């Protein structure tokens, strides 16, 4: 249900969603899901070019999924050390699945959408057995978040 997706975020409150991956690649796959955070002005992964976001990884999941199988895990998050000053919100910490990650993100008041907006997004990477490295699989999901006091 759309109503259950977190949107108006308060500091100190834990929000929970589920992250799922379905493998339809015809064989077993090794996926890494990277959780990243960006403010309203930074860029999400580029679907046209197939490039990931250059932002640092906060949290990661590793999963090995059989063909046709589904992998699902909880993703809980909480914003910490959120301050508002002169139409700018500053975020210094995010707690993901109980682990606190230091961040230095700020968002300017968005007059059109009336809020301080951030995106918590998850990129899907896949292991290439030929090169022996993980590469961006050109798939991501994002949560559009409005920080409130």
């Amino acid at each position, binding site marked *: 249900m759309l109503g259950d997706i977190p949107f108006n975020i308060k500091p100190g409150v834990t929000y929970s969603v589920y992250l799922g991956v379905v493998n339809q690649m015809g*064989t*077993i796959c*090794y996926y890494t899901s990277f959780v990243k955070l960006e403010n309203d002005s930074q860029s999400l992964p580029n679907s046209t070019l197939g490039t990931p976001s250059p932002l640092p990884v906060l*949290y*990661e999941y590793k999963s090995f999924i059989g063909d046709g199988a589904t992998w699902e895990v909880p993703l809980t998050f909480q914003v910490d050390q959120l301050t508002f000053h002169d139409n700018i919100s500053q975020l210094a910490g995010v707690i993901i699945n109980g*682990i606190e990650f230091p961040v230095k993100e700020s968002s300017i008041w968005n007059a059109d959408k009336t809020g301080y907006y951030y995106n918590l997004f998850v990129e899907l990477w896949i292991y290439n*057995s030929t090169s022996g490295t993980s590469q961006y699989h050109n798939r991501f999901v994002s949560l559009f978040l409005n920080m409130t006091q």
Partner: protein
Amino acid sequence: MSLGSCLSGEHYVFAQTDQTASKLQAANSAVGQAFIAVLDAEKAGGNVTQLLAKLNTAGTILAKAQNAVNSESTANITSNVENAIQIANQVKNDALNLRNVSLVKSQNNLWLTYSFSIVGAAVFGISLLIVWRRFKRGFIKKLLGSKPEVVENKP
């Protein structure tokens, strides 16, 4: 003196970070190799369900270590990395064994299929021959036993 100890402390932190990074790299490599071995075992026809479960355990432990590094914490990183490497190596060995067993099994199945096909084809051919010969014999017997019928020609 205090500056000296501060500098040496910083040096120690850098050295530890490098060591952690190289350990994480080794664990990532071990998990990747284990995955490739499991993939090969699956291609050889092996049932890799249990190996996948073990790989997921190794992956979760490795991700936990990486998340600790990302959160600038040092808790249990080394032990988690070593655990992940150990499980990955075990999975790799098990996968190699499973691949070999599966290859032998599929080879045997192939020979069995060939043998049954050849025997089946031979039995079918012989049966067909027997049926044909019986039919032929019966037909000739019937032909020889039949009497010619005289039909009067009436103008």
